C-alpha cells in the first residue's frame, strides 16, 4: 500500500516535470518569435545602416539580398532559428564581429557579477532577517525592516554613483570602474566590491523580509518549543533547527533573483564600465545594431527561463510536501 503511494507520487512528479519542460519549450519558442518581431519593428533599415548613408540604392538592395532581408518574415525567422541552433547568432552591424564570440568573451563578467551579488544579498539578508525575527518588535527589528524598505526604494544606479563619490572620489579606497587582470587577488577583489553592492543592494531588502516572515512562521512551530524545552542553547535552536526549515523559500527566491541580476546587470555594468553582456546590449541599442539587440535579449531571456525551470524542478525534490496534481 505504502509502495503504491510512493510510486504514484513519483509518477505525478515525473509528469509535472515533463509538463513544465514542455511548457518552457513552448514559452521559449514564443519568446524567440516575439523578439524577432520586436527587432523588425525597430525604425530604420539595417541594410542602409551597413551600406552607409552615401551608398546607392543598388548597393543597399544588394546588401539586403545578401542578408536575406528581402525574404518573407517567416523565412527570415526560420533562417535565424537555424543559425541559433548551430550556435551562429550573426554578426554585429557596427563591428562585423561574431556575436557569439563577443557573448562568450563577455558572459563570464556578467555571471561573476550576478553570482557574487546574489551571494552578498543572501548572506546579509539572511543575517538581518534572522536577527529581526528573533528580536521581533525591538529596535533592531524596526531598523532592519526600515533598512529593507530603503533597499527596495533606493535607485541602484544612484547608490552606485554615490558609492563611487564616497569610495573612489572623496576617499580613494576602491576603483570607480573597470575590471582587473585577475579577480584572484586582493587588488582584483577591490574592483568587484562596489558593483556587487550596487546590484545586490535591492535584493538584500527582500531577502531580509522573506527570511523574517519565514523564521516567524517556523519559530511558532511545536518542534521549536520542544527544542527549547529540551534545554538546547538558543543559538542552536535558531540556526540549526529554525533556520534550516525557514531557509527553503529564501533559497528559492535567491535562485530566481539570479535571473533578475542577469537583466539588472545592464545598469550596474553601465555605472562601473563593467565589460559584461548588459553593456554590450546597451551599446547595440545606441547603435541600432539589430542582430546584437536580438541575440542578447534572446540569450538573456533563455537563461532567465531556464533558471526558473531549474528552481521549479529542484523544488519538487527538495520539498516532499508539494503536491503535483
Amino acid at each position, binding site marked *: 500500500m505504502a509502495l503504491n503511494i510512493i510510486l504514484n507520487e513519483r509518477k505525478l512528479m515525473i509528469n509535472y516535470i515533463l509538463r513544465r519542460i514542455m511548457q518552457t519549450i513552448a514559452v521559449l519558442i514564443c519568446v524567440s518569435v516575439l523578439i524577432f518581431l520586436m527587432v523588425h519593428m525597430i525604425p530604420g533599415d539595417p541594410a542602409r545602416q551597413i551600406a552607409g548613408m552615401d551608398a546607392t540604392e543598388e548597393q543597399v538592395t544588394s546588401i539586403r539580398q545578401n542578408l536575406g532581408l528581402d525574404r518573407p518574415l517567416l523565412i527570415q525567422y526560420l533562417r535565424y532559428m537555424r543559425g541559433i541552433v548551430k550556435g551562429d547568432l550573426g554578426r554585429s552591424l557596427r563591428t562585423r564581429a561574431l556575436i557569439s564570440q563577443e557573448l562568450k568573451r563577455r558572459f563570464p563578467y556578467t555571471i561573476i557579477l550576478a553570482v557574487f551579488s546574489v551571494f552578498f544579498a543572501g548572506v546579509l539578508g539572511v543575517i538581518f532577517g534572522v536577527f529581526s525575527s528573533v528580536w521581533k518588535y525591538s529596535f533592531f527589528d524596526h531598523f532592519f525592516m526600515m533598512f529593507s524598505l530603503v533597499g527596495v526604494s533606493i535607485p541602484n*544606479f544612484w547608490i552606485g554613483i554615490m558609492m563611487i563619490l564616497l569610495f573612489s572620489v572623496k576617499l580613494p579606497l576602491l576603483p570607480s570602474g573597470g575590471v582587473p587582470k585577475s579577480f584572484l587577488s586582493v587588488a582584483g577583489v577591490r574592483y568587484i566590491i562596489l558593483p556587487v553592492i550596487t546590484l545586490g543592494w535591492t535584493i538584500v531588502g527582500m531577502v531580509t523580509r522573506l527570511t523574517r516572515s519565514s523564521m516567524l512562521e517556523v519559530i511558532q512551530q511545536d518542534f521549536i518549543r520542544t527544542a527549547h524545552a529540551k534545554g538546547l542553547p538558543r543559538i542552536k535552536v535558531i540556526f540549526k533547527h529554525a533556520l534550516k526549515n525557514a531557509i527553503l523559500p529564501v533559497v528559492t527566491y535567491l535562485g530566481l533573483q539570479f535571473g*533578475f541580476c542577469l537583466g539588472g546587470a545592464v545598469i550596474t555594468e553601465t555605472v562601473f564600465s563593467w565589460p559584461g553582456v548588459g553593456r554590450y546590449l546597451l551599446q547595440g541599442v545606441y547603435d541600432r545594431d539589430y542582430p546584437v539587440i536580438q541575440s542578447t535579449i534572446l540569450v538573456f531571456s533563455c537563461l532567465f527561463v531556464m533558471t526558473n525551470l531549474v528552481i521549479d524542478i529542484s523544488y519538487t525534490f527538495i520539498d516532499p510536501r508539494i503536491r503535483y496534481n
Partner: protein
Amino acid sequence: MLAVSYFWKRFKRHKPAIVGLIVVFFYIIIAVFGPYIAPYDPVTLHIEDRLQKPSAKYLFGTDAFGRDILSRVIYGTRISMTIGILSILMGVVIGGTMGVIAGYFSYLERIIMFVVDVLLAFPSILLAIGVMTILGPGIYSVIIAVTIRQIPSFSRMVRSVVLSVKNYEYIEAARALGSSNARIIFKSILPNSFAPILVYSTLQIGWNILLAAILSFLGIGVPPPIPEWGRMVAEGRNFLRQAPHIATFPGIAIFLLVISFNMIGDSLRDAIDPKLKI
C-alpha cells in the same frame, strides 16, 4: 462607511504610512504648482553660472549648462508622477481585464496565462529596453514600456483574486438567480477584488517611477532637455569630482517619492488584510 472608518483607523496606526502620505501629498503639490514654485526655467541655460555649488542664488546648485537643479527637480516631479500614475492606471485596466477574463472564463485562462508567461519570460528591464528601442525616446514611450512591463503581474494577481472570489456562495446564488456574467463581474467580483488591486497598485507605483528613471539614466527614456530625474543623475555622473550635487539631489527626490509610496502600500496591506500575499 463603517468599513471605511474601520480601515482608516487601522491605517493611521502605522506612523510610516502617515509620513508617506504627507510626502506624496507634498510631491503632488509640487507637481501641480511647479511652474509657480520653481525659481528659474528648467531648460534656460546660464552658462556663466555653470557647475555652481548650492548657494542662496541656486539652492541646489547648477549643472554643466548652468541650469538650476532645484527648478529641474521640481519640473521632474511632474514627469515622474505622470509616468507613475498613468502607467498604473493603464496597467490596472489592461492587466486587470486580462486577469478577470482569465479568472472567470476558464476556457480562456490557458491562452491568457500563456501570453502572461511569455511576457514574464523577459527580465523586466530588458523588456522595457526592447519596447523603448522600438518606440524611441519620449514620455509616452516610457509610459507604454512601463505599462507593458507590469501587465503580466497585474493579470496574475487579479486572476488569483477572481479565482478565489468566484467560488463564494453569493456568486453561485447570483448565477442561480439568472444574473449575466457581466453583472456578476461588475457588481460582485470586481468590488471584492478592489482591496488587493489597490494595495498592489500602490506598491507598484514606486517601481514604475524607478523603472522610468532607470530608462532615462540609460539614455533611452525621456530625452533631453526634459528634466527627468534619472537623466539628471546620468548627466551628473560626468561631474562627480567637481559638482557632486548634480547627481545627488535628483537621486534623493526619486528615493523619497518611491519610499513614500512603498510605506503607504505596506501599511495599506496591513490595514486591509495582513494575511494578503502580495
